[in-house]
């Protein structure tokens, strides 16, 4: 077994797990279970990033999604009512149409992917995280700062909106 085989095994495990977790998020009848499935999904995607040699992104994924966003969701679920009710995550009336459109989109995407020849090879540099930091504070400094301001604005906005007046 070489490295590629390990990668393949890990990919398939993660891929199947991710699809199942995503499906669980959509399909589970209780909203709290959906949220927990989402946590699982976030973890698995972090694993996928490791497979892709993006260790920094994987770390960020765990910290932000699993750490912060999930907590936000759980808070929201608990602050609104009936979080454990068996019908707390129902489908609406247009679910059939939504399914058709989603499958249509999937078909379109897969067909497009199939028609295209994708490049192979490619290489992630060994010091990827260092280079990433240099990129973020070098050529991408302006978007980086804007993202910071965006986060600040979002935080202030969230506080203002959610505050009980």
């Amino acid at each position, binding site marked *: 077994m070489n490295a590629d085989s390990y990668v393949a095994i890990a990919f398939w495990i993660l891929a199947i797990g991710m699809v199942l977790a995503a499906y669980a998020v959509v399909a589970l009848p209780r909203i709290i279970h959906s949220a927990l499935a989402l946590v699982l999904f976030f973890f698995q995607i972090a694993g996928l990033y490791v497979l892709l040699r993006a260790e920094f992104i994987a770390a960020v994924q765990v910290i932000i999604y699993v750490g912060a966003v999930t907590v936000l969701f759980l808070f929201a679920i608990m602050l609104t009512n009936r979080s454990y009710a068996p019908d707390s995550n129902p489908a609406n009336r247009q679910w059939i149409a939504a399914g058709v459109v989603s499958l249509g989109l999937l078909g*379109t995407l897969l067909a*497009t992917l199939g*028609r295209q020849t994708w490049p192979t090879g490619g290489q992630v540099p060994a010091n990827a995280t260092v280079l990433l930091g240099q990129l973020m504070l070098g050529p991408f400094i302006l978007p980086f700062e804007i993202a910071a301001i965006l986060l600040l604005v979002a935080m202030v906005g969230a506080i203002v909106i959610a505050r009980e007046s």
Partner: protein
Amino acid sequence: MPSTLWLILLLPVVSLALITLLRPAPRWSGRLTILAIGGSFVFSVVAFFEMLTRQQAAVAAHQEVEPVVSMVPWFQLGKTSFEVGVLADPLAAIMLLVVTTVSLLVQVYSQGYMAGDPGYRRYFAFMSLFTFSMLGLVLAPNFLQMFIFWELVGVSSYLLIGFWYHKPEAAYAAKKAFITTRLGDLGFLVGILMLYAYTGTFDFHQLQAAVKVGALGGAVLSTAMVLVFMGAVGKSAQFPLHVWLPDAMEGPTPVSALIHAATMVAAGVYLVARAFPLFQAAPTALMVVAVVGGFTAFFAATMGLVMSDIKRVLAYSTVSQLGYMMLGLGVGALSAGMFHLFTHAFFKALLFLAAGSVIHGAMEQDLFKLGGLRRHMPWTALTFAIGGLSLAGVPPLAGFWSKDEVLTAVYHSGNGLLLALGLLTAFMTAFYITRAWLLAFAGEWRGAAAAPPLPPGYALTPRPSPTGYALTPGPTPTGRGVGGEGVPAAGSEAGHGGSHGGSPGAHAHESPAVMVVPLLILAVPSVVAGFLGLPGANWFGSFLHGEEESAAEGIVIASSVVLAGLGILLGYLTYGARAISAEGLTAAFRPIHALLVNKYGLDDLYGWLVNRLYVGISLALAWFDQRIVDGLVNLVAWLAAQVGRGVTRTATGQLPNYALAVFAGVVVIANVVAVVAGR
């Protein structure tokens, strides 16, 4: 000279404006009109003599006489600029003379005839408008201006025929005249637009030049000229558009004399004469003119034989004589046609004015109720006789010379049928005018004891003009209270009849001097005007043409004189000496008589065409328009409304619905793009 022409044209407008704006006392409006037209007359005479001088100078220099033209730019359309102005050549000079002379005399006469009429002022305003329009038509230097004045003349004619608009017959006749002539005018308009389309000009002289260099000709010119002639057919009451003229006799008799005998109806003849060089280049069109003219002359004369209304006899006579003029023009004799127009204007105006005098004096216009008026109205009888003899073509009166010139021209053209029609017409003309004179002036009074109080609106209602007021124009005692120019109908007539009472015909009386004098003046040219165009010494023709006309033909003159004499003799034997029974004649020719009295059924045919066929087609089209066309429109509107109603349901306000639509759109567009790009 241009300023003279402008003055001739504009003086009647001034009087029209003054009458309408200042609303002077009725008698002053009449005088104002006479003053203005008198001015036009004087200037016309001046212009005529100036033209004569120029003509003589031109003849001496062996040149064609140059017309006097004065143009004012009117408007610009693209690169073409349109002009209005005045143009005078010998043709226009003669026409000016005719129009202003007859017009002036008729206005003077009208002062007596219209005395006491509530619409006195309005009458003279309309007359000014008419004179202005007619002069504008005569002086027009291009087809466009001519058409405008042509229509203005039509409007004035409409206004004057319907002058007693409270009489349903008059209103109806006015409409009939206007609409019938419009039919011809449509052709006229299309014709001149055709000429414009092919040459880019309306100007007579530029069009002539275009014909001369060959830029215009062939079928195009023929078609255009036939279309232009349609206008003349309508205005000059030629077959088949003649039906309006007899009905137009509902208007006041001076109007009939001026507009429907001497001037306006001659406008069609003048139009053909004005465009004569164009017609000459289109032999087909000229042939159409000749045939229509010849047929109309004969056709109208036959109906003139049986009419019982004195004015209608004269009306059909007018149609017939206009046919003569067209016939003359049609066989290529410009001066013959114009000469007949010239003499006819005088003797027909004379006849009409005399008839008006009869109606005015006897309060009756049915020939079979008149009679014996010779004793009561000697001057009228005399002048009517002069006019009648002139019309009948008795030498050496004016009508004889002009009619024979036309017939000679037809003879020279070699068309035997047209000549036969012309000679037959001459015979019938002599017969019916003799009949009219004898019935009206000879024998004994056959009418009611006194003019009975006819119901208002009755077709033959004589004009209410009590003698007592005839010489002192002013408000009549009746018909005043209701709206100013109200209905002066039965009341005043009853008063009139009552005041005279007494023996049969006792109320008939000679007309006042203001009416008789114009009759006498008109009698003079009716006698002598012919000497201007003697065969062999044709001054008229040389003035118009600058050259001599062809010589006379003894056989034509002889046969026309014989036929006229026979006509008069037959008329005398039937209605004067009673040697031949009129009733017997009627019985012998009963089917023909019935046909003639019914005017060949043409009125009924046109009535059927308009009331049944046209209305039927219109109703069908209306149904089609309302059901099918509007239905389609409504269907589209209904569909749009339904679609809108359906689409409204998609506006649920539900965010997931909208998002679904967005992504469905994304999928569709992505696939479309993929398919298109994949090709």
